[in-house]
């Protein structure tokens, strides 16, 4: 029994429902549609989880860049100068910053998921707090890392 009013022209009778909330299963039974991204209410735990996957994907590109750094170093001073010429340019530094950000967010997000996987911190309130903490913490560490890099004079624009 539904207690809240249904939106628009929705009907409780699945056979004449027009909203697409119901689907006919392969066995012929009519069942409600599972919640897909487009119809799901935004939530911070969802955003944090998606962010973890996105940063993971970005870090695969980062792995290739770090591999190229290793390769340039192994190929001698000229190859290394070419590499640092590209990756030390303003655009290259922006890429490095993006990778640092992705790394810090993925690290913090990974720790968050490890905590959840240990069946800890799963109440809605704690889960929300952990999601915010991991995202804010990741950004803070990445920004602090680059603030120290610039202030120590190791990196200049």
């Amino acid at each position, binding site marked *: 029994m539904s207690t809240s009013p249904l939106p628009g022209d929705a009907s409780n009778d699945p056979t004449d429902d027009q909203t697409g909330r119901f689907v006919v299963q392969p066995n012929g039974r009519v069942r409600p549609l599972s919640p897909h991204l487009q119809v799901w209410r935004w939530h911070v735990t969802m955003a944090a989880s998606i962010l973890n996957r996105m940063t993971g994907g970005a*870090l695969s590109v980062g792995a290739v860049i770090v591999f190229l750094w290793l*390769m340039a170093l192994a190929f*001698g001073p000229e190859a290394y100068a070419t590499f640092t010429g590209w990756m030390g340019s303003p655009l290259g530094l922006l890429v490095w910053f993006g990778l640092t950000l992705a790394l810090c967010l993925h690290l913090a997000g990974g720790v968050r998921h490890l905590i959840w996987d240990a069946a800890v911190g799963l109440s809605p309130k704690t889960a929300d707090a952990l999601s915010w903490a991991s995202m804010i913490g990741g950004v803070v560490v990445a920004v602090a890392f680059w603030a120290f890099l610039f202030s120590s004079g190791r990196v200049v624009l």
Partner: protein
Amino acid sequence: MSRETKAFVKGVKVSDRHGAGEWSAERLSSLILVPLTLWGLWSGFTLSGAGYDAALDWFRSPVNAVLLALTLLVSVWHMQMGLKVIVDDYIHKPGSRGALLGLIGLLCILIAAAGVFFIVRLALGSAPLPAGFGI
């Protein structure tokens, strides 16, 4: 028939095939990567803007070389598993799925093998490539 078999641990249904192992492996690799990533951030900081000679010096330390090789191998392992999950989730056509997973596997093996090769050469202080490799 084998798909009908059900394994239970402490009254909880667990995966019949290799899903549970993949799940555990991804957690194990991330657990190992937590300290390695912090060390990697620190190393990246010290190597930033340090130049070619300082980078070579850094590799002469066996601790650095071993930790970097370990970080590379565990990262590639973790990356392969992570990308596999993404492909499994979004690519449903068996042909494209298999081809993509094969491509990812090849790339991971290439990064791991060539990466360790470079690290070993740098740690031993070998002459810059392509020394002795043609050209």
